[in-house]
């Protein structure tokens, strides 16, 4: 690797290859033609041609979340870059390591409103973790290596590299840069040992502790999940998780309370409310988790472990903040617990209370008659794939929450869903990314009929690369979550939440070259799922479910954890204006 004279495009690919990149999700265009030509002339990096740039970023996110490796995107200037913005923002909100390379018009044309020019660095400045406009080919290698360093370390996130066409063509010497020692960006991995020791003592003396875990545990890598399991074993504490953290703790454990928050379980939210010590591990007290802030766990002491110190005290005051990678902090916490010979003070009374809340059986539903309850569809799917360790992606809405509630995960990196941004159209391209990372695994997108139409064009990508992904669509003909809120807040006035002209999804699937299966009634459900799993190729299942089912439990916006709605019977028609103004 002694410096070789290469074009900017070749330097880019050389650097990506040195960084271990095996696959790029992209879409060509005028401003990236030199890079595509260089791609064509090499064999180390595979390119997956998506059908829309938003799909490229979500596919890269799915790849990253399933594999733990950064996802890489290549798009052209102007509309290529702006189409990628939703995906970039999604990756920022969910802290997913993605590097997005955008073409740009030649440097001498920047600022002239040239064809397909847009201010990509300006547009992505606040929806990326960092971004670059590279003006000299000689700087390119260093920028690419630094971009990967920034995307994958600290709190991960998307990094954008805007690359003018003349910089791709000009030549420079490429030499693999050494270790990145950034002047100002130095995320902290190890937590402060004194603070961790204090946390261990607090945990040992708590009578009613709870571990509140989040996506940081997944991002940190497999050790974090392992150490969480160890800590739970040592302390006997109940464990709950945000939407992002599902899988870090095994759902089969008796200590597992299920997901918390707006559509979390009764036991998880009540335990959060009544604990005396909350240990927040790699989560960020999101409004979907806390509910009304002044009613959020009012009597507990709070410990917060996060790699991003701006998360401390942002919405909820904490008593002890530990900055560091949650995997390293948990490792030290477990070591300190053992070396000090600590014993938990958790009381039987606490578990009795939790058992009482569990007895409410908040996720119960009744399947009666031929009409399929959406939860029942997910439960049957769960039974059918038991033991196959599937990767599940979702779109956004009711089906996403039902999947989170009714699909148990035992391991991390199996659950890929758009949490922070809540992007409809996420699940199909994310499933493509996950299947590219793991060609032989079972990958299922649990979707809704409205969301799936938002990136339906990616069905074509799956065919091109022979990706046998399964789309399991809960079709109720409504944007179900919008309709649910209209039931809750607007006396059931369903403004524009019904899709009056849905396609025939089976024919659509067949037109794309997929297998299409339609399930109308309960007696067809198991056979339909079996046929989906038996087919060695992509399958679209149009599963017709009850049209007006709503997702419970639910904490309405502006309410506290103790004010959960458990069923339709609890739903009132309108909220006051203050609550209505909350999202």
């Amino acid at each position, binding site marked *: 690797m002694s410096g070789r004279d290469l074009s900017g495009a070749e330097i880019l690919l050389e650097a990506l290859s040195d960084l271990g990149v095996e696959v790029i999700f992209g879409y060509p265009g005028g401003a990236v033609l030199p890079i595509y030509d260089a791609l064509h002339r090499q064999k180390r990096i595979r390119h997956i041609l998506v059908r829309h740039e938003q799909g490229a970023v979500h596919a890269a996110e799915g790849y990253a979340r399933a594999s733990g490796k950064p996802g890489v995107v290549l798009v052209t200037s102007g509309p290529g870059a702006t189409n990628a913005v939703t995906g970039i923002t999604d990756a920022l909100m969910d802290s997913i390591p993605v590097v997005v390379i955008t073409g740009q018009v030649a440097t001498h044309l920047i600022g002239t409103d040239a064809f397909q020019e847009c201010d990509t660095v300006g547009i992505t400045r606040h929806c990326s973790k960092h971004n670059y406009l590279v003006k000299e080919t000689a700087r390119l290698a260093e920028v690419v290596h630094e971009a990967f360093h920034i995307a994958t370390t600290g709190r991960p996130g998307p990094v954008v590299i805007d690359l003018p066409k003349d910089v791709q063509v000009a030549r420079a010497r490429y030499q693999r840069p050494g270790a990145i020692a950034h002047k100002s960006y130095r995320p902290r991995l190890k937590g402060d040992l004194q603070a961790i020791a204090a946390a261990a003592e607090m945990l040992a003396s708590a009578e009613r502790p709870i571990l509140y875990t989040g996506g940081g545990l997944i991002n940190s890598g497999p050790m974090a999940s392992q150490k969480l399991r160890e800590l739970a074993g040592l302390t006997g504490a109940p464990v709950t998780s945000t939407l992002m953290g599902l899988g870090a703790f095994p759902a089969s454990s008796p200590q597992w309370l299920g997901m918390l928050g707006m559509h979390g379980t009764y036991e998880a939210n009540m335990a959060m409310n009544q604990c*005396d010590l909350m240990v927040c591990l790699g989560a960020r007290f999101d409004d979907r988790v806390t509910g009304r802030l002044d009613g959020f766990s009012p009597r507990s002491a*709070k410990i917060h472990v996060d790699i991003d110190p*701006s998360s401390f005290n942002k919405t909820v005051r904490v008593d002890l903040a530990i900055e560091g990678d949650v995997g390293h902090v948990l490792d030290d916490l477990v070591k300190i617990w053992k070396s000090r010979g600590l014993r938990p003070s958790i009381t039987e009374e606490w578990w009795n209370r939790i058992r009482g809340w569990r007895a409410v059986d908040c996720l119960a539903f009744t399947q009666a008659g031929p009409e399929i309850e959406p939860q029942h569809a997910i439960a049957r799917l769960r039974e059918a794939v038991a033991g196959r360790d599937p990767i599940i992606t979702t779109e956004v809405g009711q089906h996403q929450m039902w999947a989170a509630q009714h699909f148990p995960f035992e391991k991390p990196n199996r659950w890929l869903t758009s949490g922070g941004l809540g992007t409809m159209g996420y699940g199909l391209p994310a499933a493509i990314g996950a299947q590219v990372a793991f060609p032989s695994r079972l990958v299922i997108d649990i979707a809704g009929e409205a969301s799936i139409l938002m990136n339906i064009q990616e069905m074509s990508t799956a065919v091109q690369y022979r990706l046998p992904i399964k789309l399991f669509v809960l079709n109720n003909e409504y944007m179900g979550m919008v309709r649910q809120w209209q039931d809750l807040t607007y006396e059931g006035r369903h403004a524009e939440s019904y899709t009056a002209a849905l396609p025939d999804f089976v024919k659509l699937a067949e037109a794309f070259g997929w297998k299409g299966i339609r399930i109308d009634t309960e007696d067809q459900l198991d056979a339909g799922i079996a046929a989906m799993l038996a087919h060695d190729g992509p399958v679209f299942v149009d599963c017709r479910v009850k049209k007006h089912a709503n997702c419970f439990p639910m904490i309405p916006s502006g309410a506290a954890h103790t004010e959960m709605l458990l069923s339709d019977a609890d739903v009132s028609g309108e909220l006051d204006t203050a609550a209505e103004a909350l999202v």
Partner: protein
Amino acid sequence: MNAGPPPPAARKARPLAPEEPAERHTLSVTVDNEAGVLGRITGLFSARGYNIESLTVADVSPDHAVSRITIVTTGPRRVVDQIHAQLERLVPVHSVTDLTEAGPHVERELALVKVAGKGEARVEALRLADIFRARPVDTTTSSFIFEISGSTGKVDQFIALMREVGLVEVARTGVAAMARGKDPA
């Protein structure tokens, strides 16, 4: 279960409290002197709804690699802490010092103040300028431009007085600030 030390003291979680009084804080931020860095900072303030009372920026290193930005902001303590943390999160930011928090520091700004008038008002303007140690940097028979530097309060006070003797326009630099004593911030 064993009897350990007493459980952690119960403590009421303080919610977002709009009633917390707003405080004025002066932040000194050193950044890489690169294209777009000011956009990152001002964009952060607008995106998250933080206030900027004044912002000054100039390159301060011999190789032009580092710029120093002084930001005066107001907000409840919790918000100022957030601003601090959010600024530190930006990749090109080297350091953030809350000078108000750190202790004694000097704050200065410079203003150019144009007054026009004749007769007694003109004489009075000159007399007041002298008291404030403001220096005329441009003169015509019917106007002055004064240069004044000092604390924000002093500059405010001078401008208020000039309104009564024919103020035409004002240009202010905003605050530059530095910790007292021999050490850097």
